[in-house]
């Protein structure tokens, strides 16, 4: 369990957000916000200052922000934020781009019972002082 980590979920699918919320809450995180566009994510990030963000890499560009631009904006605003990218299995290239930009890890879609376990372990390592 990682208690006290505030998280922001960024995904244009309410269905996907619900699953991510379920797992983050199960880990002990507090989901403080959800964004359905990359631009909304950047705005909410500034307001909520979460320590953890999950970001879907395939979102339409709206108001000049796509996922990568939003990722960079959030990282620039708070370099220590833990960013997790969400991507579909065969998209290693896109995933690698985000990993090189400083993502902590990735969650693979479609979600199944194994999708979140590697992330839980990483979060426990990063937020070890908060892990119970």
């Amino acid at each position: 369990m990682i208690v006290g980590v505030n998280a922001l979920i960024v995904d244009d699918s309410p269905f996907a957000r619900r699953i991510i919320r379920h797992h983050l809450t199960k880990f002990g995180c507090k989901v403080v916000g959800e964004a359905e566009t990359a631009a909304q994510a950047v705005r909410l990030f500034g307001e909520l200052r979460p320590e953890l963000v999950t970001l879907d890499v395939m979102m339409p560009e709206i108001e000049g922000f796509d996922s990568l631009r939003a990722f960079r904006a959030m990282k620039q605003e708070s370099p220590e934020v833990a960013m997790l990218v969400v991507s579909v299995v065969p998209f290693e290239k896109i995933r690698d781009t985000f990993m090189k930009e400083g993502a902590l890890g990735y969650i693979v879609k479609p979600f199944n019972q194994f999708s979140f376990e590697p992330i839980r372990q990483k979060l426990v390592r990063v937020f070890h002082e908060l892990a119970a």
Partner: protein
Amino acid sequence: MNQRNDSPNAAAISPVLDATVLAELREEDDELLRELIELFFAEVPMRVQRLRSEITQRNWSAAVIDAHTLKSTTATLGAMDMSALAAEIERTARDQAAGEVLTTAIDRLDAELARVLAALEQERAK
């Protein structure tokens, strides 16, 4: 096409949905599964409709994103045939291939959606 639906129990529940996937979700959290089914009804038909108009308008980048999301949303609830159809549309739209191929594909996706919604309706009633 449906690789995971290979047990007798799975086949007995529904040929449209992979029962193993649904059982895993139910085991994880029954309430979560119920909510996901409701979200599926709210989101997926709208996204299929939007995908159809994106294909008609040859808006390939938007079509790729919607097909991509449909691919994973449907697979998450075990609708593997529908997921494969969405993946096919995503690939074709990515290559900006002939609209006629995609029109046929979206018709197949719509037909499969009707089957999936009917199967989920049964799950809802449980």
